[in-house]
């Protein structure tokens, strides 16, 4: 989560810029506020194990971010955290299964599907890449790195799409030609997870 917070800090301005033409220029600012609270909350409460860490992080995102990204990312982390339970560690399969539960909860909450030009266009390909890599015997760090690459490809593929969900959908055709900021922030978070696991955190 600290890696995610660092990534959000680093890239907040770029996310906000992406949000300017098709949203309302606050995606980076909002996520930075949320992840600052997550960093502080994890320091104060020191939950142990991946499940409790994700649960607390999700709750803090919901209660600090607002907008659409707060409930969506908050729900992803809370549901994934719940799925992992109180175990002190999780293997690759458990992580992938928990993330699938989280991402599907996001899809249900937002009522969106792949191709609607949302964060799901990065998250679903990442999930598929993660599952396939684990299936073919790669370790979790490598599989997450593959997931990060798939997320980036998915986000880039949102550029020519017309938005059907979220604020950008109000623009209709005028949303075409811009990368979805939610997909871009999803790339950051998946990549941060990959880097953290790769670094043995």
């Amino acid at each position, binding site marked *: 989560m600290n890696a995610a917070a660092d990534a959000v800090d680093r890239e907040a301005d770029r996310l*906000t810029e992406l949000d*300017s*033409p098709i949203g*309302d*220029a*606050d995606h980076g*600012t*909002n996520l930075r*506020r949320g992840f600052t609270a997550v960093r502080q909350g994890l320091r104060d409460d020191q939950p142990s194990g991946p499940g409790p860490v994700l649960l607390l992080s999700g709750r803090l995102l*919901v*209660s*600090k*971010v*607002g*907008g*659409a*990204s*707060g*409930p*969506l990312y908050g729900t992803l982390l809370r549901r994934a955290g719940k799925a992992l339970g109180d175990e002190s560690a999780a293997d690759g399969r458990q992580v992938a299964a928990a993330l699938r539960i989280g991402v599907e909860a996001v899809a249900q*909450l*937002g009522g969106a599907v792949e191709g609607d030009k949302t964060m799901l266009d990065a998250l679903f390909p990442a999930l598929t890449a993660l599952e396939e890599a684990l299936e073919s015997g790669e370790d979790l760090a490598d599989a997450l790195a593959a997931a990060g690459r798939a997320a980036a490809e998915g986000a880039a593929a949102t550029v020519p799409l017309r*938005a*059907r*969900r*979220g*604020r950008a*959908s*109000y*623009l*209709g055709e*005028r949303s075409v030609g811009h990368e979805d900021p939610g997909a871009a922030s999803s790339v950051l978070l998946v990549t941060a997870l990959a880097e953290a696991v790769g670094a043995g955190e």
Partner: protein
Amino acid sequence: MRQLINVPETVVEEALRGVAAAHPDLTVDVENRIVLRGDAPVAGKVGLISGGGSGHEPLHGGFVGFGMLDAACPGEVFTSPVPDQMVRAAAAVDSGAGVLFIVKNYTGDVLNFQMAAEMAEDEGVQVASVLVADDVAVEDSTHTAGRRGTGATLFVEKIAGAAAQAGEPLERVEALARRVSESSRSFGVALSACSTPAKGGPTFDLPAGELELGIGIHGEPGRERRAMMTSGEIADFAVQAVLDDLRPEGPVLALVSGLGATPLLELYGFAGEVHRVLAERRVPVARTLVGNYVTSLDMAGASVTLCRADEEMLRLWEAPVATPGLRWGA
């Protein structure tokens, strides 16, 4: 940019401190960002709660008081509030008669209010929700997030507020709020971009001599951009866009709301043109409200909202109201 602020991070808190100072009959919880009626909870009364991003003042905090909202939850500028705010507000205003959430149709507002409704119900508060989605500039289809909620929010808050003040039960207040929402349509026109405190400058580029038809209240682009038009030409376009969708057969309530930076001299002139167009289309106007009510920071321009008003709505519109932003008869 020249903005009357200290730092962008605390503009909402600073505004709430000012609300508390100027309106001692309200209870302002600055830390948790809730504006409450000073006498909440009112025994036996349904609690009306609304909220949304800040930057649209007086919406919603300016409409808290007798005959209108019981609580408002302001979010960051142009960002929806978080569920914790609505849950606290619901607990503070619920007298046992339940609460109604009035939600503008933006993905963030919808998601956060939906989570709040579940959480408040877990705590034993009966919650109903009504969605306001009146902006005809947005294509309404099952493949989009639907229309944006704008000026009609004021009609819903005032009329449902009067019904709740009169002691109507939750089901009736909710049904009435839904009827007002479904009977209202809006269209907005921007003559300049707005500037968010965080960005410190215009959020989009609108060259001098051009205007944006169908603008959203966060500066989202509208239907089209054209060379500057006269007030009368804008009224022709905006009123026609609303009437094409609303098709009123009787009297309407009219709201001509400034977007923040257009003076009343221009707004009243524009309201006169709106009346002219409605008269030409043989649409009688029961009441007209002109002023800055649903704004977009410092955007220049105006929105037109019309509501097909039945007798009950008109009676409740006339009922006394005492809030910082709307006050008559009380």
